[in-house]
């Protein structure tokens, strides 16, 4: 039995909620240790900053991974246009909620309340997703992939276009802000007002140990995102355990068989695609637009591939796995290396380029190369992510939890699994 199997068996014994909570606590503990190690007397503020940022990242990627899991893991729709649907949701929310009397140089919006904007953004992302899905779902998986990634670039280039930066519609001036982006009602302000309002006594306690107000608001925002993750998880768990969800899993296993059982698989696929896109749109504004500002460069295809990496690490087909994958990817692979790299004291001998670093090896001095490597760890972490992705797809294609991929049948068909028993919570 390999080490990975041993870890997996241990993970299997935990209930899903405990697994996620334990995982998050573990990542928080790592951040706390890092803050204690490098923060000196200011460690509480540093720890709050690290934990807040990592929680926001995990929350954002978890929502995206859950949405992608519904499309790909359950229904087999290989959508790599995630960034495009995020942009649709984020821009719709931004245009709906941007102030009608903007600051100089900024773009006006409709000035609606944030919750209207969020609903509008989700709705628009679902509609655009449905429109994109109508013709595209006939395609083979890899063609669908290319169509969706091209579509996401078309969306990004369109909102980036200066012609849409500001235009008039029914006598009102609106716009996307073009390449400079658009400012709107910030979801972060909600967290800020919570900290200053209801949470004032708790906040005072935190501030007395030196945690700054912005860090506290950020931490609160991260927890709010986790609440959205929890709500999405609950909805998706209900959805995928319903008869609707069983049809989705059947489509993934064999679409022709599902069709011959009288299910209109196209309709199911389009609905799934729309639900997933709506959640991606929500993540677009809550995650990328946390500070109340978005610009087209935040929606490059790269982010789609990060979401894929998160989902594959966690194991596609499992909602719990999506969240764990998002935590592993964004906490351990994306955030942690960069923070470590920033906080390792390099001295003054770190060379500015790799040639000097390698040249020093000639005089048997490995320090410059080490210093250069540590100094550029924020670049190297992407190499690590790529290598992890290749490793997983070669050796562990089901990811951390993908082996718990729920079967398409409502009764357990796998005798060996039935013998172990106790997994079903029904």
């Amino acid at each position, binding site marked *: 039995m390999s080490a990975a199997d041993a870890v997996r068996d241990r993970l299997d014994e935990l209930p899903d909620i405990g697994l996620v909570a334990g995982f998050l606590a573990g990542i928080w503990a790592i951040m706390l240790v890092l803050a204690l190690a490098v923060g000196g007397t200011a460690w509480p503020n540093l720890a709050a900053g690290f934990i807040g940022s990592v929680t926001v990242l995990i929350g954002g990627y978890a929502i995206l991974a859950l949405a992608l899991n519904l499309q790909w893991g359950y229904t087999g729709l*290989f959508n790599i246009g995630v960034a495009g649907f995020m942009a649709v949701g984020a821009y719709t929310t931004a245009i709906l909620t941007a102030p009608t009397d903007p600051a100089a140089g900024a773009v006006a919006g409709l000035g609606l309340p944030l919750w209207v904007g969020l609903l509008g953004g989700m709705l628009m992302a679902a509609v655009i997703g449905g429109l994109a899905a109508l*013709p*595209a779902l006939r*395609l*083979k*998986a*890899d*063609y669908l*992939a*290319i*169509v969706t*990634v*091209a*579509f996401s*670039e*078309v969306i990004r*280039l*369109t909102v*980036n*276009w*200066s*012609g849409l930066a500001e235009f008039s519609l029914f006598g009102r001036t609106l716009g996307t802000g073009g390449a400079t982006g658009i400012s709107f009602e910030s979801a972060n302000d909600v967290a800020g007002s919570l900290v200053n309002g209801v949470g004032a006594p708790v906040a005072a306690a935190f501030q007395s140990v030196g945690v700054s107000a912005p860090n506290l608001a950020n931490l609160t925002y991260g927890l709010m995102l986790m609440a959205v993750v929890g709500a999405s998880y609950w909805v998706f768990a209900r959805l995928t355990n319903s008869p609707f969800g069983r049809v989705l899993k059947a489509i993934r296993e064999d679409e022709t068989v599902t069709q011959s059982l009288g299910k209109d698989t196209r309709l199911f696929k389009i609905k799934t695609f729309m639900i997933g896109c709506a959640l991606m749109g929500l993540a677009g504004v809550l995650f990328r637009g946390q500070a109340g500002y978005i610009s087209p460069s935040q929606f490059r*295809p790269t982010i789609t*591939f990060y979401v*894929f*990496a998160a989902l*594959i690490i966690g194991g596609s087909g499992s909602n719990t796995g999506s969240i764990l994958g998002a935590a592993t990817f964004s906490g351990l692979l994306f955030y942690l290396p960069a923070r470590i790299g920033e906080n390792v004291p390099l001295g003054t001998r770190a060379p500015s*380029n*790799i*040639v*000097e670093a390698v*040249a020093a090896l000639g005089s048997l001095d490995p320090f410059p190369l080490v210093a250069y490597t540590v100094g*550029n760890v924020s*670049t*190297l972490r*992407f*190499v690590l*992510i*790529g*290598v*992890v*992705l*290749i490793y997983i*797809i*070669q050796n562990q*294609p089901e990811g951390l939890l993908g082996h718990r991929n729920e079967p398409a049948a409502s009764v357990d068909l796998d005798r060996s699994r039935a013998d172990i028993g106790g997994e079903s919570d029904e």
Partner: protein
Amino acid sequence: MGLVANARGSRAAVVDRPGAVAVAAVLGYLFVDLVVKLSGTSVFFLGVQVLGGSLELGSLLSMVIDGLLVGLAVGLAGIGLSMTYSILDFANFAHGDTVTAGAFLGWVVAYIAAGLGTGAPIAELFMLNSGRQLSTVSTFVPVLLGLVVAGVGSVGVTLLVDRLTYRPMRDADNISLLIASIGVALAMRYLIAFVFGTQTSGVASGGLRITLLGTVSMTDNEVTLLVVSLLLMLAVHLLLQRTKLGKAMRAMADNEDLARVTGIPTERVIRLTWILGGGLAGVGGYLLVLESGTISFNFGWILLLLIFAAVIVGGIGSIYGAMAGGVLIGLVDSLALIWLPSGLTRAAAFLVLIVVLLLRPSGIFGGVTTA
């Protein structure tokens, strides 16, 4: 004869597919509009300008040349993507970064070769930031040397990647391979960034400007791109027509198991596919940098979708399709400027990709046939 069959096939497609008719109508409109624009007149209908405007013949020619140059390099890079798509049956998302890797290898060698003896420090030359601009005329030998190294170097890179990543998973399904290639793309792109940094370096600019017609001109670097890519395309054509390799590749694209049973050394054909495709990708990237003058760690990644567009428009698996598709997409990318504002031309090229995939997934030149 193939042409006749093709024409008949496309007529049948028009009857079956109203979408194709719509595309033809749009193309027809654009063509008429182009002619009216060139004649310098406008046509008004109910007070709205429906056709025309003004367009100098000279600027049209410049746009065609620009599109042709970019298209040839994209087509060259696309040959490899098309071949791996048909023979290994997966969309290789790391192909764009192979283009970057080849370009960097070639340009570092060209830059060092051109800079040796000028007293510039080697670190500056290696990092491509001594500020020197190479051109075919002024530094012919280094540019040629770089071209060769770009080809050979990217062959090495592709073979290494194949050995480490794809070979252990030859039997995997095409989505697993696609995901592995996404991992390869990430790792390769940021390894390049780790070594060379994330800045954009200017490394080349035309040394000589050749006037073709009035205001239309080409630089020596652009002529190099044109000549080298046409020569390489001819060479690929001869290689696949005159050797058994082409036939073996066609057989593999059609049915791998059957090919192996017939005695075709499939693993060797796969290796040759990577060699040919990787080498051409590296050369394509090198030539693109020669033409555009700048190089950065992610230019191939940004180019990837355009290469995909070329391959899909031409028809996956068809090498001539990749070449023609490259030119077509290059022309769309540059000629769209006649009708669209400059921010939307790239979007137009991607829209062509989407429309072709939806209406005619086998590509304009159709069919899975290597060669």
